[in-house]
């Protein structure tokens, strides 16, 4: 007898996802509070028609807060977003990724029924944008965005994107295409006498037709084809030959040769080929841009890393907030060694700021209360509060991340190859074209011009130039989806060659969150408060645990704060010397249970007590280490050998386990490995191993709250995703194979097509069609291959 399990699945009335925990409302099931809220809003406004147009039209909506779009009301920011602005009328375009069906259109176009301040809204389904006209006296821009988010259509705000004004350039391309197409059609019509061979009958008529053709071709060359000519001129100005030169040369050759033929009445010219060529080139360009748009659309977004900083909220608590939500007047707190995310005014008495990331000058600069401090500086010493002066954008910090100070020596290998190839290639193409011209001039002068043009068209190595950015770009995106945010595409290349991985312990192998903390010793209330205050200045994971463990409010003035990496922190408070840190640092000599970490507190060199901290080892990390196998070289820890036992269990006997490592020791260890010929990846928390991260070929900072920004690293990995690290390495290795295959395909195309063109079997028209097809196939191949490999690699890992 077999037993049948029947599982009745309930799906959400709003979004159609299966419900794990059902929220009932009006006899309708909802999967989460967010979906239910959207339904409530729509129901109370008589907008439930939304659910009739399409079943489960919503997208899963996490409950959001009203404040998250408040920064849009800053005049500077809203000016960037508004397309029209007057006191009583304004309009803005929002990009809404979740638009996907008829119901979406219906609801978004009925926004005015949700809020009277909205005058009108129009959806552009193709671009997933909505154009909203509203009355600024009744509703602010931020509230409009909040309103959209409240019904499940959170707009994606990107200030950088808004500036580009994409549609206009797109339109001009289509205009150029229209002109070229028009001319192409008519030129073919006027060339009919030539095609049918009736030129003998009426000579004057063919002359008129020929001149009409010239007239039609002029705008094709000087309007439709102007981009190619301009690119060629620019390349000559920069004294560098680029891949547009052969195309421009081909166009000019065809046009002037034909005009010369017609003017001297020696022949009909090739103006039908010429106009058709431009027409197909432009179609190719248009199709290419469409393909790239759909493939590369969210590259900028997902490959960004989320950054947060502590901001003083209205109820007097420090809460982390994403940095681009900072606005003028916010009070933020920066801890020792953290970066200043935005230009601000110093609120505390004094601070030392290290601007070496910005200026290269290593000596810290002293700032006094009221001084302006600039984004990109790093705080040395006591944590300070700052008042934000200027809101910041993610891209600013990303560009900082990419600044020269952190550039690794080994430059991108493929970029160099491509640069050199493109330059040499163009010369080779021109050379081949010249040789072909000589050959055809001798054997068959009549078809020389067409053959040259075909050669010039088809040899364009643009597919070659596109393979690398698209392969590496999609790897960046796939990794970004799995919460590894790499600095740039070069890192992907370097990651692919890694053969040694070195781990830091605290915050990397062990959890950065929810430790067991126990307090031993005699610390009174006020001393505990001071310890909380001091540990709040430090970014070391153990300091953070102690800071979170003590539940007291802490205020007071701190002098002479110093953080000694690998030892602890030291400061003067009310005439007493506080030392918080390791046993040796504070002068503690008794033997303690070796299975936990300790933070000792001494006041005026007398040990008052200690915190015993047991951090949890991350789940499933042992499996990952096992899969890494021989590649996993070492564990470097700044702590005592307290956790040697469990670490040996995880890492096995083949891995070197080193404890009591100072930041300098870690750096030296990495250096040694490199000297032995290894390509090293360092995985650490980026605080007391920043030097090692920078020294390593690839340095990955692991973080749990995405708060700490370490420009020395090459990537930021979310702590929970560390168990996928081995698969990520495999993906980057596979990407180099994919890239090579892309190069091979592109080269194959060029070689075959060129051989046909040289032998005169390929007309310029076919060449013009073939060229974009080759680029598109290479681009699609690399993007899809990366996606396929990524999905397969990460399938079994949770």
């Amino acid at each position, binding site marked *: 007898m077999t037993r049948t399990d029947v599982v009745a699945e309930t799906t959400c009335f709003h979004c159609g996802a299966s419900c794990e925990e059902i929220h009932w409302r009006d006899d309708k099931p909802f999967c989460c509070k967010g979906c239910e809220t959207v339904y409530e809003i729509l129901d109370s406004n*008589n907008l439930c*028609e939304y659910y009739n147009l399409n079943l489960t039209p919503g997208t899963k909506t996490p409950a959001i807060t009203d404040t998250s779009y408040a920064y849009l009301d800053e005049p500077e920011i809203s000016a960037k977003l508004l397309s029209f602005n007057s006191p009583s009328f304004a309009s803005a375009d929002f990009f809404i990724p979740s638009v996907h069906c008829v119901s979406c259109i*219906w609801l978004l176009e009925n926004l005015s029924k949700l809020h*009277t301040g909205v005058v009108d809204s129009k959806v552009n389904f*193709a671009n997933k944008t909505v154009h909203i006209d509203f009355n600024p006296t009744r509703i602010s821009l931020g509230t409009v965005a909040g309103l959209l988010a409240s019904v499940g259509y959170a707009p994606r705000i990107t200030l950088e994107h808004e500036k580009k004004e994409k549609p206009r350039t797109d339109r001009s391309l289509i205009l150029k295409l229209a002109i070229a197409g*028009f001319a192409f*059609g008519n030129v073919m019509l006027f060339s009919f006498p030539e095609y049918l061979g009736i030129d003998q009958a009426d000579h004057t*008529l063919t002359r008129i037709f020929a001149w009409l053709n010239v007239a039609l071709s002029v705008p094709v060359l000087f309007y439709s084809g102007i981009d190619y000519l301009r690119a060629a001129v620019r390349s000559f100005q920069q004294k560098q030959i680029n891949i547009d030169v052969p195309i421009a040369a081909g166009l000019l050759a065809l046009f002037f040769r034909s005009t010369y033929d017609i003017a001297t009445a020696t022949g009909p010219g090739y103006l039908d080929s010429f106009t058709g060529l431009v027409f197909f080139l432009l179609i190719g360009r248009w199709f290419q841009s469409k393909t790239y748009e759909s493939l590369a659309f969210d590259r900028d977004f997902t490959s960004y890393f989320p950054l947060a900083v502590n901001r003083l909220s209205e109820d007097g608590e420090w809460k982390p907030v994403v940095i681009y939500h900072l606005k003028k007047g916010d009070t933020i707190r920066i801890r020792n060694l953290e970066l200043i995310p935005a230009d601000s005014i110093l609120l505390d008495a004094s601070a030392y700021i290290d601007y070496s990331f910005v200026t290269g000058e290593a000596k810290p600069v002293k700032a006094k209360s009221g001084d302006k401090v600039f984004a990109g500086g790093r705080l040395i010493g006591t944590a300070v509060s700052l008042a934000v002066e200027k809101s910041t954008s993610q891209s600013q910090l990303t560009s900082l991340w990419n600044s020269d100070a952190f550039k690794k020596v080994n430059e991108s290998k493929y970029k160099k190859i491509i640069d050199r190839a493109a330059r040499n290639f163009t010369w080779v193409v021109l050379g081949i074209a010249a040789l072909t011209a000589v050959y055809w001039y001798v054997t068959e002068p009549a078809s020389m011009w067409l053959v040259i043009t075909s050669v010039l068209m088809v040899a364009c190595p643009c597919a070659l130039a596109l393979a690398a950015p698209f392969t590496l770009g999609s790897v960046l995106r796939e990794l970004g989806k799995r919460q590894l945010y790499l600095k740039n595409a070069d890192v992907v290349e370097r990651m692919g060659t890694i053969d040694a991985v070195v781990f830091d312990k605290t915050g990397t192998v062990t959890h950065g969150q929810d430790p067991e903390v126990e307090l031993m010793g005699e610390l009174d209330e006020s001393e505990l408060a001071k310890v909380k205050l001091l540990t709040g200045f430090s970014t070391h994971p153990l300091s953070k645990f102690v800071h979170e463990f003590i539940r007291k409010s802490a205020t007071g003035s701190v002098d002479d704060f110093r953080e000694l990496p690998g030892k602890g922190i030291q400061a003067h408070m009310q005439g007493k010397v506080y030392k918080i840190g390791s046993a040796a640092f504070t002068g503690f000599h008794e033997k303690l249970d070796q299975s936990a970490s300790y933070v000792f507190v001494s006041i005026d060199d007398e040990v008052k007590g200690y915190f015993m901290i047991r951090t949890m080892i991350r789940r499933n990390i042992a499996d990952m280490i096992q899969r890494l196998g021989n590649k996993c070289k070492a564990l470097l820890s700044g702590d005592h050998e307290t956790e040697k036992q469990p670490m040996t269990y995880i890492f096995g006997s083949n891995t070197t386990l080193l404890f009591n490592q100072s930041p300098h020791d870690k750096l030296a260890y990495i250096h040694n490995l490199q000297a032995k010929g290894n390509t090293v990846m360092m995985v650490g928390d980026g605080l007391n191993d920043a030097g090692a991260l920078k020294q390593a070929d690839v340095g990955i900072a692991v973080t749990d709250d995405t708060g700490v920004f370490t420009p020395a690293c090459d990537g930021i990995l979310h702590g929970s995703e560390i168990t996928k690290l081995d698969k990520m390495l495999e993906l980057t290795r596979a990407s180099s194979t994919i890239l090579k295959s892309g190069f091979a395909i592109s080269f194959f195309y060029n070689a075959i097509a060129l051989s046909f063109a040289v032998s005169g079997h390929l007309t310029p028209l076919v060449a013009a069609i073939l060229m974009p097809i080759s680029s598109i196939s290479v681009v699609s191949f690399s993007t899809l291959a990366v996606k396929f490999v990524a999905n397969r690699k990460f399938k079994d890992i949770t």
Partner: protein
Amino acid sequence: MSIIALLISISLTIALIFLGVFLWSMKSGQYDDTYTPSVRMLFDNDVKRPDEKETAVKAELKK
């Protein structure tokens, strides 16, 4: 054969007119979104509209 010259000029003029019409429709944004208008015309206009004041009050309360 002069009739051909006449026909040619007429055909060219008509072609130019169509090109002009296309450019105009292009510039006025008719091709920006080819899907939404086809759906928009099917929506009912007579969605029961609650009293405007009521909506405004509700929105105020939500704040």
